[in-house]
């Protein structure tokens, strides 16, 4: 079971461009093979996530390749198979919802319940209304709903028929945190209960982390990395992934030097910024990029004993931004004028209590340095 895709889709801005043999304005080329799990598609805006879902759903026809879901061949370019959308048993939440404007909420939700008897239909609709916290809106028309309500109706409509695969295009983007957190749980539950592949697009790191079994990272139409949230967030495989998962401090073209005294470690030299790190298992090139997540920078008061530890630099605070539960500090390292972002929970920030202009020590945690 699960989902196995390997296909290409090309967009041309003008119909004529294709005939003229011009290069496509956007080319999507994806391969992945995943089980019945909750997969988050993660990527920059315009990287091809929606297009991927559309190809899997059959609303777009790929230009080549193969798509197999739950052992059904949805699409196979060579065999000219292209299963009609209707036979794919999908639950698809469109990025723009596409609620039927001439049906009220109840009818919208019930629309996919073809062949259910009236009693079961009614029951299922009520179930869905409750699940998505939209009870009381059943007789509203889409034009009488708020953005977040519309989104939940779209979700309800997609979930109601218990599909064989769920394609959710940013399904929570318009929801407040309270419902959003509840719904994350529900979606996970539903996935576990129905044991179906769920493809979930989100731009929210926390959401990706808390909900995903696997994360597929897109960049400019190509899959960059596939793995558990921990894999991709803590071990991004390249610069694009790194940026995307919030590894804000990135240094490119660092020279990796072996240290004779400590064969387990590596020195990364990037301009005049030198850091020591654990040597990764794989062999690294001479020139590498490395990065560190803001929350893996430790901020310490300016005491001398701390300063002597590895990867610890004197820095000047350039700005402090309150993110609510944590503060983000922009630090300029005194020696090499590099700018680093550090994030720390408010409760620990209180201990150092820094303001713009203050000086402090910043320690790049050796074990948290990511080389790619």
């Amino acid at each position: 079971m699960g989902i196995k895709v390997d296909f290409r889709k090309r967009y041309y801005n003008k119909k004529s461009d294709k005939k003229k043999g011009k290069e496509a304005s956007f080319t999507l080329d994806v391969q992945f093979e995943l089980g019945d799990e909750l997969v988050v598609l993660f990527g920059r805006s315009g990287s091809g996530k929606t297009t991927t879902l559309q190809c899997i759903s059959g609303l777009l026809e790929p230009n080549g390749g193969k798509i197999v879901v739950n052992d059904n061949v949805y699409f196979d370019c060579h065999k000219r198979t292209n299963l009609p959308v209707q036979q794919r048993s999908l639950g698809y939440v469109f990025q723009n919802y596409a609620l039927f404007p001439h049906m009220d909420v109840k009818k919208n939700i019930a629309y996919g319940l073809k062949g259910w008897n009236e009693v079961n239909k009614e029951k299922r609709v009520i179930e869905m209304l409750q699940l998505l916290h939209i009870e009381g809106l059943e007789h509203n028309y889409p034009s009488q709903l708020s953005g977040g309500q519309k989104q939940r109706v779209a979700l309800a409509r997609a979930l109601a028929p218990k599909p064989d695969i769920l394609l959710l295009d940013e399904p929570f983007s318009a929801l407040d945190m309270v419902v959003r957190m509840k719904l994350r749980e529900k979606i996970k539950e539903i996935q576990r209960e129905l044991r179906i592949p769920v493809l979930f697009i989100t731009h929210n790191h926390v959401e990706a982390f808390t909900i995903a079994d696997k994360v597929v990272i897109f960049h400019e139409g190509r899959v960059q990395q596939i793995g558990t949230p921990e894999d991709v967030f803590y071990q991004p495989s390249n610069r694009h992934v790194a940026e995307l998962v919030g590894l804000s401090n990135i240094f490119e073209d660092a020279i990796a030097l072996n240290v004779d005294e400590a064969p387990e470690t590596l020195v990364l030299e990037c301009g005049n910024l030198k850091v020591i790190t654990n040597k990764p298992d794989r062999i690294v090139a001479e020139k590498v990029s490395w990065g560190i997540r803001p929350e893996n920078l430790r901020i310490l008061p300016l005491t001398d004993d701390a300063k002597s530890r590895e990867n610890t630099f004197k820095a000047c605070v350039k700005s402090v931004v309150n993110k609510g539960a944590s503060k983000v500090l922009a630090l300029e390292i005194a020696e090499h004028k590099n700018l680093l972002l550090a994030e720390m929970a408010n409760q620990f920030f209180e201990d150092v209590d820094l303001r713009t202009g203050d000086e402090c020590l910043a320690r790049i945690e050796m074990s948290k340095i990511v080389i790619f």
Partner: protein
Amino acid sequence: MVSVFLKTDELKMLEQVWFPLVITLKIAITSTLLVALIGVIISYLLARRDFRGKWIADVLVTLPLVLPPTVTGYVLVVLLGRNGSLGEILYDITGWTILFTWEAAVIAAFIVSLPLMVKTTTAAIEAVDRDFEYAAFTLGRKELETALFITLPLAKKGILAGTVLSFARAVGEFGATLMVAGNIPGRTNTMSISIYSAFQAGNNELANLLVIILITMSFASMAITAKLVNSWKI
């Protein structure tokens, strides 16, 4: 039905007015139902399917609008008459000729109002956002179901406009009808034909009366449509 009346002047007047009204409504309603049904199907295909020679189908449908109704009527006589290509087959099978019956008038009205229905409805269907159809597809609904419950309801304003036009045209239809159905008192003398011949005969009184009735009828049916539209949520 009519012949039970005694032909006093008053009753004759009644007959001259009542019969055309009934026959007109019968013809116009039948033809409009047919036009709406077939027109919607044609429009859907024109709007949503790609096929070779689509624009030729488009022109063929529009043609009856360009030709003078008498010519359309003539073509229909040639086709449907006892000796016409279609009419002959029909005659051989049933022994019945459609010419000069109210059914022939329906066909005439159908042909002349079809372009109105098709053009209007095609434009309306094309204006429906395909995303709604796609959503229905993902919910497992076949194209037919989607067309019936999603596309057409969303195009209903255009469909209604087309239907109103077709009905009006059927009521007003005259040239082609006269040719295929004749002007047979008590059988095929529609309002339009009666008005025309009353005017031709210089019977302005009757003509005016009929015109007034026709206008009243139009107002009434339009008022009903307006009410219907008002009750729509969308």
